[in-house]
Every structure is written in C-alpha cells, then in structure tokens.
C-alpha cells in the first residue's frame, strides 16, 4: 500500500508531530542555506502541477534536491493533458517511468485521492481544489511553534475566503488535533455553517474584530477569485470589512503573529503595512516550507529505491 500524504485529516497527532520535529532538523542554521543531504540518493520524484504555483513547486523541488533526490517538474500546459489524455492515463504513464513518488497539485478536490486508489506509487498532495493542502498546514504549524508557542489552547483566527480554501481546511484539521481554538471568519457567503462540524474546537464569525480579539495567530487567506463562481464582494468592500490593517493588531494578543500562505494581494485582504510589519512571519513560512517538505519527502520516500527494491 502506497504511503503518500493526501491530507492532514487522516494523520494522527503523533505522525504530524514526527514530521514537525524532523523539519526542525532540516531548518538552516545561522543564516546559512539549507544543508545538502544524501538521504534520498537514488530516489526520484515527479512534481506534477496542474495549477500554477510558484512557492509550493519551487519549495518541493528545492526540498527534493537538498535531500539528494532527482526531481522532474511538469506543468499541465506542457503535458499531454492538453491533448485530451485522462488524468488516470497521465499518472499511469508517469508511474511507468518509475519515480518513487509523485507530488501533485490539481484544481479538482479529491483528484489525488481518486488516483491513489488506482496507483501503487505514493502521491503527495500539493493542494487539491478546495479540499486540502497538507504541507501548508505543516509549515504553518512549524512556524507557529518556532515562536515558542504551544498549539494547545492557542487562539488562531483564520480570515478570508474559507469556503474555497484548502489551506483553511488543512489548518483546521491540524490545529484541532492539537487542541487549538480556531476561529474562522469571512463574509457569510464564504463561510458555510457546516464548517463547525468538521473538527472540534472550531467557531465561526462574520465579524473580523471579534475574530481577532485576543488572537495569538492571525492567518489571512487570499481571496480566490478563480474559484468563485458567483458575484461576491466588491474589492473595496472586501478590504473594508475583511482586510487586515495595523489597527486590527491592537485587538490581538500583544505577541500575536500574522501569517499568510501567499501569494498576497496587498490592499485586497491585507494592507502593505500589516504584511510588512514586525508581526508578519510570512517569509518565515516560506522558509519553513522547504524544511517541512524535506521531512515529508523523507518520510514518504526513504527506504524505497528507484530499482523497485525496498529496504527497511
């Protein structure tokens, strides 16, 4: 049975903790770059992105190379998908080239889950539609923990387009497993009531001040215009009600941090001042992305060699 990483929901707290601990080992020291290892020498990984991505794809690629694995990147526009090939056939074709894992991003929720049922090769989900983005939640947790905080009892406000956010879902599952209190906030049309039922410790509010009050972590989300299928808020009204500005930070815990999975839209969901403030850890998130993805790649691929032999 393939052991990839499809989502946070199915992971245990212990499994998550192990990845976060291992990621700490991979963090660069004293202003250095990421150290080069040969832990995944002779392994090969395919980066298959059906949606555009800068940070996630680059981050996975660097993570693979730093571990000594060979990596190949494919974007959908350059692949035979544009020639009408089905997703299953594309994946089967790539699997026949014997990589040790496939990292995949796709616009359809559940696409990697559907494929994993038909493929032996482990799949690492780099974001599926509006469902999960597990490595994002892991790097977010690593970033919060780096601030010396414990996740348990932490008050985390996630603000923005929750309905269409895979980042929100993965974070909700992860934070809830560790006993954090998660407040989800956004306009009612982007905040389905049923979110309360997907994990313990989740509350909802449409009022941004209420969400931020006493928050330890403020996580802003991008407005995903490409996933909205109906008229929503006007840009100016959105920023007025759900854009993070410096004055909001006064409501939060004095040590509160501001996070954003990127790409940020300055003036749309976050003001430039808030994004660049001392509280912002947005670039720490990007850096941790590599460390966390190194830990994930090691977990998925160590012990499996390209020649098909499995060592334990």
């Amino acid at each position: 049975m393939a052991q990839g990483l499809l989502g946070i929901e199915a992971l245990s707290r212990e499994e998550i903790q192990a990845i976060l601990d291992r990621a700490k080992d991979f963090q660069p020291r004293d202003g250095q770059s990421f150290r080069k290892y040969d832990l995944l020498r002779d392994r090969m990984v395919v980066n298959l992105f059906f949606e555009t991505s800068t940070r996630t794809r680059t981050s996975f690629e660097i993570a693979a190379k730093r571990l000594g694995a060979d990596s190949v990147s494919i974007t959908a526009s350059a692949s035979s998908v544009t020639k009408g090939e089905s997703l299953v056939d594309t994946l089967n074709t790539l699997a026949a080239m014997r990589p040790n894992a496939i990292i995949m991003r796709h616009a359809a929720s559940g696409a990697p889950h559907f494929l994993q049922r038909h493929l032996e090769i482990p799949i690492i989900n780099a974001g599926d539609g509006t469902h999960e983005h597990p490595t994002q939640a892991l790097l977010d947790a690593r970033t919060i923990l780096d601030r010396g905080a414990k996740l348990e009892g932490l008050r985390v406000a996630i603000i923005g387009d929750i309905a269409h956010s895979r980042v929100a879902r993965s974070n909700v599952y992860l934070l809830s497993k560790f006993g954090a209190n998660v407040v989800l906030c956004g306009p009612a049309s982007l905040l389905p009531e049923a979110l309360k039922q997907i994990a313990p410790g989740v509350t909802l509010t449409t009022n941004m001040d209420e969400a931020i009050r006493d928050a330890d972590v403020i996580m802003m989300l991008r407005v995903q215009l490409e996933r909205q299928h109906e008229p929503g808020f006007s840009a100016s009204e959105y920023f007025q009600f759900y854009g993070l500005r410096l004055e909001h930070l006064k409501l939060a815990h004095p040590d509160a941090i501001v996070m954003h999975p990127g790409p940020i839209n300055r003036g749309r969901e976050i003001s430039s001042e808030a994004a660049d403030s001392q509280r912002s850890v947005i670039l720490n998130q990007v850096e941790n992305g590599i460390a966390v993805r190194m830990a994930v790649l090691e977990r998925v691929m160590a012990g499996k060699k390209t020649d098909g032999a499995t060592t334990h």
Partner: protein
Amino acid sequence: MARLLIKNGRVIDAASRHDGVADVWIEDGVIKGVGANLTAPAGADVFDATGLIVAPGFIDMHVHLREPGFEHAETIESGSRAAAAGGFTSVCPMPNTKPVNDNATVTSYMIEKARRHAVVNVFPIGAITKGSAGEELAAIGSMKQAGAVAISDDGRPVMNARVMRRAMEFARSLGIPVINHCEDLHLSAGGDMHEGAESVRLGLRGIPGCSEDVMVARDILLAEVTGARYHVAHISSRHSVEMVQFAKSKGLAVTAEATPHHLALADRDMKPYDSNYKMKPPLRGCSDVTAVLEGIVNGAIDAIATDHAPHPGSEKMQEFESCPFGILGLETAIGITLEQLVHPGKIGVARMVELFTIGPARILGLDRGTLAQGAPADVTVFSTEREWTYDVNKSFSKSRNSPFDGKMFKGGPVATVVAGEVVWKI
C-alpha cells in the same frame, strides 16, 4: 403462446388485496386465474414458487436506456435484460436520449426497438420541451399518440414557471402526468454532492436540499392552478416529502417516487471522491433519508423507481467533479427495498409490492400492476430470504457504475415473466 402455471407461491396482488398461497394460471399472454390447487393441463409449463412471493410484474417508472444516442452506455435491449434480472417487467425510459425524445418519431423508434429487442415492456416518457431546453413545448400530443405515457425534462428541469404551467395544462387535457426532476438550477449550479458537513469537509461544491424544495413548492402550486397530475421524480429531501404529503392532504393529484439508493445511503456513506456515489439528486443528509423512508411508510411516496443511469467506465474514471451523475439501479432495487423497508419491519411485503406495481401503474394510467383475470401476464417472482451477492461485473447492463458492487442481500428477484414468457430466472 406458452401456458404457464406458477404454483404454491404467496400471491400478493395489491390491487385486489389478495395475499395468500395460491397458483397463477397464465395462457395466451394474460392472467387466466388465481386460485388454490389449480392443475396444469398436459404440455403446460409449471413453475414451483413454494416459499416465494408471486406478484404482478414490477414497473420501474424511471430509467435511462440511453438509446438512441448513447448505445455505448446502454441499449434498449441491454437495459431491458438488466430490468428483467432485477425483477422488472416494465420500464419507462426518460427522454434524455440523442436526439431527445421530444417528438413522435423518436418515441416510435424506441417503441419499435423495444418490440424487436427488449425482453420487458418499454413505455417511453416524452420530453416536456423541445430538446428539453425548457423553452418551447415539445410535440406532446403526438408523442402520446405514439405511446408516450408521461412527459418530463428529467435532468434538465423546466426552470421557467410559465412554460411549466402551460405544459401542465396541456398534459391535463391529454390525461397524462407531468414528471419533474426538481432542482432549481441556479441554487444547485456547479454542485457535485449534497450541501452539508460532508461537502464542506471534502471541499466539494454543494447541491442544497432547498434547490429541490423550491421547485417542488413551485410545481405543487402550479398543479393546483392547472389541475394537472403532477409527479415528483426521485424525491430526496425532507421538506419535499412534507410538501407532497401536504399537497395530498389538499386533495391534489400529486404523487412521488423514491429511489432505492436514497433509502439506503446518506452523504456520509459516500466513499470519498468515488463517482459511483455521484448522482442527482445527491445522497442527502441522514434526516432526509429518514424522511424519505417515513414518506414511504405513511403514503406520501407512491412508488419506488430506480433512476437507472448507466455511464461507461471511461466517464466515471475521472476526477469526481468531472464525472457524470447517475448510477445503475435495476438489478439491486428489490434487494435494497427489502433490506431498508421490509426486513426492519417498516412496511410489509404487500406494501412493497404496491410500491413497485399498482403504485406506478396508477400514476401512469397503465393497465398493469395487477394479477386480475384478463390482465397482461407480467409476473415478478421474488424471494425475501435468499442470500446473494451483487457482482456488477456480471450485470446485464453495459455499464458498471454501482455503489452496491459486492454487497450481500437477503432476498431478491427469482423469475420474471413478461406476457406469459419467462424472460429471466436465476
């Protein structure tokens, strides 16, 4: 013509309220009599139905046979064989063929194909509007003359209330029912499964229960205005069941059918992102499933119909949101109904027979669904006890899209008799 004596079965004829061990004598394609200890004349076939239920032939008033146009998914012949293997003697194919069954030529084509190749009776349902586009009324009168038994734009519901009103007025004058797949397409746009905690969890866009309810409400009001016989296809939501019950209490000619899968499964039973669980209406929440079951018990719902919707593997082997809606239903209907309604004691076998026979026959005005003397000799013989496992790879359908593959059932079809001929038996 074959002569057949079905002996010693428990004969249940909901129309005449007969329920007891008896023999059924069939000659020249019609029922000649039901009674005790009938003897077969020399040369007649005898079927021993000891321990089995002998019922009027089951009618599935909602199937998709995909012919003409989508013969790679199903044909009238293959679909009719699946029907026979499921215990059905009559099926009503919906008009979403290619071309759409919106005129007498297509209706006649289907009837002629069925006459030559089908092993069960086929009663087509015509479209309400041309091309089922929802704008201009189809050739309803001539389709009725050609043999259509009802009209529906199934799957592409009439969104324009004025068009629906005119269709109801016309249908009333012709004496045929209007069947609607109730779904406000604006509310459900882009949805892939029931809107609720499960859709939010899986990150799939939802089809809210209210998208069904809004249209049921509209149609009931129009049925009152027009006096039409109005039928809700595959009812699946709690409020819709309540509204149909309300319409009945007002004396309106409003009826409803439910599918076996909406009795057996809720959204939380879905295998994540498995398109064998993707259909419209979607598998609803638990309270909706309970309401549909109760609607069958209390009479709000008049019939069970499968919405048999074959799709070839190539279309179901995709990302969930790209897969078409619909699942097979003909071969598992009796097994699921027994499991969900009869074995738990919610209804008796007689009520189950009613839901598959005189229930749909009355809605459609068919002279079937009974074992009365002189009725067409369509008979369904089934067991309430026999254990069997559904293997979709052995299905008579040309498609394989069923969530019930590998499921064990207690009770199922044993033999199917159409016009006096045994067309299928175990």
